[in-house]
């Protein structure tokens, strides 16, 4: 059973999607570690280390995603999580921006997959399957 850490980063309190992601991933047969809303990069990383997770799924809904996610890949590496997969999704920047730009910015930050607004967790299940090789 693969382990996925989920949570909502920064000062973000949007809890609904987080609960639905939890429910959906568990239903799809994953071991889900949910650190909830208002979580820092460190919270994610510590949870991943403790549970030997395969994937960290960062949610950011409230618009500060760009600020909140900076340096996360570097921190993972520092903590010994060289190979961990990093996803980010929700409404990750402020406003309706050209998504290609956003994608580029987050890819440069080291995220493996970056989802545009309106991508429900169901639509990402295939990617997860592929990346975790099950």
């Amino acid at each position: 059973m693969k382990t996925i850490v989920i949570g909502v980063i920064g000062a973000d309190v949007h809890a609904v999607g987080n609960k639905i992601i939890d429910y959906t991933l568990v239903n799809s047969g994953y071991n889900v570690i949910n650190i909830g809303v208002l979580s820092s990069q460190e919270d994610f990383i510590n949870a991943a280390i403790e549970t030997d997770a395969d994937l960290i799924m960062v949610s950011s809904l409230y618009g500060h995603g760009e600020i909140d996610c900076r340096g996360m890949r570097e921190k993972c590496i520092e903590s010994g999580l060289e190979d961990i997969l990093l996803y980010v999704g929700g409404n990750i920047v402020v406003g309706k921006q050209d998504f290609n730009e956003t994608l580029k910015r987050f890819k440069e930050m080291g995220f493996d997959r970056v989802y545009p607004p309106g991508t429900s967790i169901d639509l990402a299940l295939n990617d997860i399957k592929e990346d975790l090789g099950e």
Partner: protein
Amino acid sequence: MKLKNKKLDLKEFFKEREEVLCGWKTGNDSELDLETTVEYLKSVPSYKNFAFVLNKAKKHGETLIQPRAGVPELGEHIKLLQFLEKAGADFLPSTIDSYTRQNRYTEAEKGLDESMDKHRALLNGFPAVNHGVKSCKQVLEAINVPIEARHGTPDARLLSEIIHAAGWTSNEGGGISYNIPYAKSIPLEVSIRNWQYCDRLVGYYEEQGIKINREPFGPLTGTLVPPAISNTVMIIEALLAAEQGVKNITVGYGMGGNLIQDVAAVNSLHSQTKEYLKRFGYENMEISTVFHQWMGGFPADEAEAMALISYSSTVAALSKATKLITKSPHESMGIPTMEANGLGVKASKFIVRMLQDQRITRSEDLNEEMDLIKREVNCLMEAVLKVGEGDLAVGTVRAFEQGLLDIPFAPSQYNAGKIFPARDNDGRIRILEFGNLAMDQDIKDFHYNKIKERADSENRKISFQMTVDDVYSVSKGKLIGRPGK
């Protein structure tokens, strides 16, 4: 700290105030001297006074329009508000960014600086504390309607000081409604106590002859909240505010989606708030209602979003709410552009004017739904008062602790999070799993039967999947999340 539902002693309040103003450098501002603030607030003309304009609208049976809006940079923020005023907004907001909401002023400063550097908003709102009183005054002076601060801040003491000092005559929030949906690990007694301070500040101004409006945040998590739960929270916060001397209160409700249930909810919210205030001896209260357009996930298509905005406005107008808070066609995407925000204002205003002289007359169905909500609210209120051994504030804390009061989908660890809502066959929000919610058995049976009826008609068992389907449904263009097609 010993929490009590009792008007804060003025001396203690002043002492606390000194600490509060040390929270960030802008608290040192001489414009925060109470003499100066009183004078400035007295100079605010009545057409920029929230309480005054609300009272007038209520008298004429009008529904007035207020958008949501806030960007980090001062000049841009003013431009935005001026644009929305021109689009037809009767009230203007200043939505505060999320760092400020968590009192993280350093991060807010960083976000503000970077937004100015990059000419691109990196904050999701206007960091009023970082801007300070002077800048906030500039905002007020640039427009011709009242301004309200809208946020989601468990500890809004410094923020409230600054905005009122700047002549903003309404403050949204409350000890429950700005904690449970907006925080994870802040104890209720802390946020309630903080909001007693904010209310006491308004009460102080009231004593100086200055009318300031307070608006508990009705929609809570915005997600399938059963009307009785949000109405109960509204009534509690109205009572807590009244105790601190607040006189002008707007209780809120977030659209559920079924017309009859929504109209019933707003009507009973208004009448029960008045009833409870009277019962606890608060006199000369001015009570109005605010209706929030659909607060859950929006459809991505902009024409569909405009339809949802218009439908929400229709329900608001038929429920005779005094104020209507609008969304924009960009809702599902992100903070709207000025123009998109204006479209929401225009559509909403058009509808409330079209419906100005119309009303939904009482049908048996509407009456029954109102009776139900009132009975449910009474169950919850009695439970709160009982566990509080007579003290409402204490009762609230204990009721949440025990799950007697419980808000679906809330992030707070001080919320039991045991109840699950689902829609019935008419699309009305009912409760599928009650957890420990303090409701009479016959009410629980009623909910169960309603949901059973739907489950049967959909050929499935009652389960959390119904709740999940209902969370998504409106964004997919259906009120009820039915399986299949």
